[in-house]
């Protein structure tokens, strides 16, 4: 018995001695490899940023792929994989030259044919790409490093399109991958970007691991949005998807993660007192809320009824309900966002001054007589669910017989494609939002497209003048002239009301104080960040 006790004692003593050693060993391991642990806004479900527009796949794309051109903080196109571009005097021929040192993750060099194949695939899926190809006569590689794009007629957005910062971003892929049908996912992730995707470590729904690409040669300029040097200062980036915001917050407080991409606004106060946490707005452009009426169904097939919505809405009501903290939102009448190059307040008065009497008058003039109005409420997206309830209340206040139909977002995305009348399962209103990176241009902002049932986005606005002005904008290369066109366009938009902008808000991110070099940008980038 005694000897058994002695054995137990010695085992415990050995364990007591071994435990700190093991901890020290673990500590050494941790310090040997610099790991940036990120809680992303969503789970990475698929890996092809051309196949899907999901922002999480776009963010994945920025880690493993690279772009030819990238936008800087003034939204100006800058060379990224390119050494230079030259434009012919007539503006019809663009000659692009790749920079030195570009290699795919399998070690092979990046060549001009890869770029041509990648642009062709992207253009089959992206709206700006499709528009670019409408103007394109030919796109060919003339040597290993040079390719030439020849236009049929002048087009002002060639560089902006190739440098598009948000989905679908024209990421460069190896020719064999880029030849995949754009409606199928690429079979392998072979990029040339600053990180390499570790497929074996990928657990969908939980974890994604990116290793530093030691062969990547960053540009020498400082990082600025997607442009400049992508200098990687960690060995590994781990995305740990945590679906529950409260758990994410607790994990950040406990130091189990370093960076939380999208903080739920209601949890900001709970973290503000923690000296180890920085809460910051990383995306300076923000997000714009859209109340989308169906232009095919009464009463919103009548422009006066849609104008009534402008008078009915007060942005502050929405923003207080869905965001809360006044530091994180602003009222903004501009269709192309405030504080962007195309920001203008022209025509926005009806939106910025709530007037129920005017709203009721316009509804009456539109012939509205108490018919049921169907509002689709996506209950699984808190921001949109809240905005739907605010709209429902406002509609009731101006005398509209509103029926709120609760559903999940997947169901809503199917229902909104229905063009049928309300009595046959159609709809009148839904809400969504769009980030500044997508909304700040008349071409990439899908909500202002007024191409009728054939071409416009769900809700199907139809107005030739809007389409003509968008076309003029796309052909114009001079920023000042573009601004003049946008003023005319916005004036017309407030007459037609393709959607009602219910405000602009800024998504906060949170990270631990041991991080430095976090970049301000509409897309979260993970280069330049140091884990101290």
């Amino acid at each position: 018995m005694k000897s058994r006790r002695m054995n137990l004692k010695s085992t415990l003593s050995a364990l007591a001695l071994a435990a700190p050693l093991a901890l020290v060993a673990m500590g050494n391991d941790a310090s040997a490899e610099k790991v940036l642990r990120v809680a992303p806004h969503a789970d990475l479900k698929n890996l092809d940023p051309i196949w899907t527009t999901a922002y999480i796949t776009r963010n994945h794309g920025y880690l493993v792929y690279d772009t030819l051109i990238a936008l800087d903080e003034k939204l100006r196109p800058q060379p990224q994989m390119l050494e230079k571009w030259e434009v012919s005097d007539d503006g019809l021929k663009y000659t692009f030259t790749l920079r030195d040192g570009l290699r795919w993750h399998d070690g092979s060099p990046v060549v001009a044919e890869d770029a041509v194949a990648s642009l062709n695939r992207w253009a089959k899926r992206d709206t700006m790409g499709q528009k670019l190809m409408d103007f394109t006569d030919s796109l060919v590689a003339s040597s290993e490093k040079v390719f030439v794009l020849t236009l049929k007629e002048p087009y002002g957005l060639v560089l902006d399109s190739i440098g598009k910062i948000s989905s679908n971003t024209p990421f460069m892929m190896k020719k064999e991958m880029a030849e995949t049908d754009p409606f199928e996912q690429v079979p392998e992730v072979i990029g040339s970007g600053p990180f390499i995707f570790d497929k074996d470590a990928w657990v969908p729904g939980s974890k994604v691991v990116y290793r530093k690409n030691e062969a990547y040669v960053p540009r020498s300029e400082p990082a600025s949005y997607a442009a400049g040097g992508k200098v990687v200062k960690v060995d590994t980036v781990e995305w740990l998807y945590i679906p529950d915001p409260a758990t994410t917050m607790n994990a950040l407080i406990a130091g189990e993660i370093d960076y939380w991409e999208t903080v739920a606004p209601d949890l900001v106060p709970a973290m503000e007192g923690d000296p180890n946490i920085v809460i910051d707005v990383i995306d300076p452009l923000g997000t714009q809320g859209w109340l989308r009426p169906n232009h095919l169904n009464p009463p919103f097939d009548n422009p006066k009824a849609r104008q009534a919505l402008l008078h009915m809405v007060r942005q502050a009501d929405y923003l207080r309900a869905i965001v809360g903290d006044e530091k994180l939102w602003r009222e903004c009448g501009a269709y192309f966002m405030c504080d962007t190059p195309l920001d203008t307040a022209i025509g926005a008065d009806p939106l910025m001054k709530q007037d129920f009497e005017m709203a009721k008058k316009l509804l009456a003039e539109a012939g509205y007589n108490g018919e049921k109005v169907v509002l689709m409420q996506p209950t699984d997206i808190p921001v949109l669910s809240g905005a739907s309830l605010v709209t429902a209340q406002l509609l009731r206040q101006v005398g509209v017989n509103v029926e709120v139909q609760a559903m999940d977002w997947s169901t809503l995305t199917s229902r909104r494609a229905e063009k049928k009348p309300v009595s046959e399962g159609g709809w009148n209103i839904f809400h969504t939002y769009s980030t500044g990176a997508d909304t700040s241009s008349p071409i990439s902002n899908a909500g202002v497209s007024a191409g009728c049932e054939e071409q416009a986005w769900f809700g199907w606005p139809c107005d030739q003048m809007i389409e003509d002005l968008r076309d003029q904008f796309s052909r114009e290369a001079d920023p000042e002239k573009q601004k003049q066109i946008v003023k005319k366009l916005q004036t017309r938009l407030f007459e037609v009301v393709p959607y009602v902008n219910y405000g602009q808000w800024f998504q906060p991110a949170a990270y631990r104080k041991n991080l430095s070099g976090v970049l301000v940008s509409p897309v979260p980038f993970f280069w330049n960040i140091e884990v101290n």
Partner: protein
Amino acid sequence: MYAYIVRRILATIPVMGVVAVFVFLLLHLTPGDPATVIAGDYARPEDIVRIREQLGLNDPLYIQFGNWLWRLFQGDMGISIFSNLPVTHLIQQRLEPTIMMALTTIIIAIAIAVPLGVLAAWKQGTWVDRAVMVFAVLGFSVPIFVVAYAMIWGFSIKLKWLPVQGYTPIGEGLIPFLRNIIMPAVALGMVYVALIARITRASVMEVLNEDYIRTARAKGLASTTILIRHALKNAAVPIVTIIGIGIALLIGGVVVTESVFNIPGLGRLTVDAILRRDYPIIQGLILVFSGVYVLVNLLIDISYTFLDPRIRY
């Protein structure tokens, strides 16, 4: 006995068949379209049609069902619409965390609930009995997420004893595994403890009124011997039954627990797949869940023969 087991296993095939048809129809008749999710918010209608074609979603329902069934017979549950990975691979990846959490929960629950139930029955009408019943009512009434957040606040944020979230496979060490699994298992086990404790109390109380218990007492047997060897053993059948039925409760609770503690298990895989209408994953998971349920019931039925020698199949 062996013939019975074989008969029961064979009987699961039509059950699974009915489940398969029901699930398939239910999913495909529910509104929602994975093609619209894939295509993104700004997709053109023709892009959505093209994606639907690629995914085979434009085929008539009976052809889609036939294709799925044919692949299933070959052991292929299909490919996830979104991740492009085989469903069997995705389920395998998530199986261990869920199984380990369920097992730990059951072990903890039985270890706490059975002694509590026996104690309450033995001390019937006293403050001990009432305390156990108050605990049981609380276990039923307090939602899992409340218990979970309270434990995270206490043990992770304030005391810093346990990690907030995540899962460590048991293969990477017992201690790291236990550090991650203990809070989810306790949170999930609360309802289970309450359920088993109540049934144990009721069953043991019933047995304690039997003549043979009185005889045992009259013979002067020790209380613990009477309780464990005579009362508990004879009260075991309803307790084991409720443990089996509780597996269904467990499956439901797993979804919330896995979300709160960020455990990459089958519960979260199910919810994610439903929200995105990833049909192959949902179909595969429902088959796995129903298979587990049928198997657990079979095991319980077989266990009766060991617990009660009068039962013969």
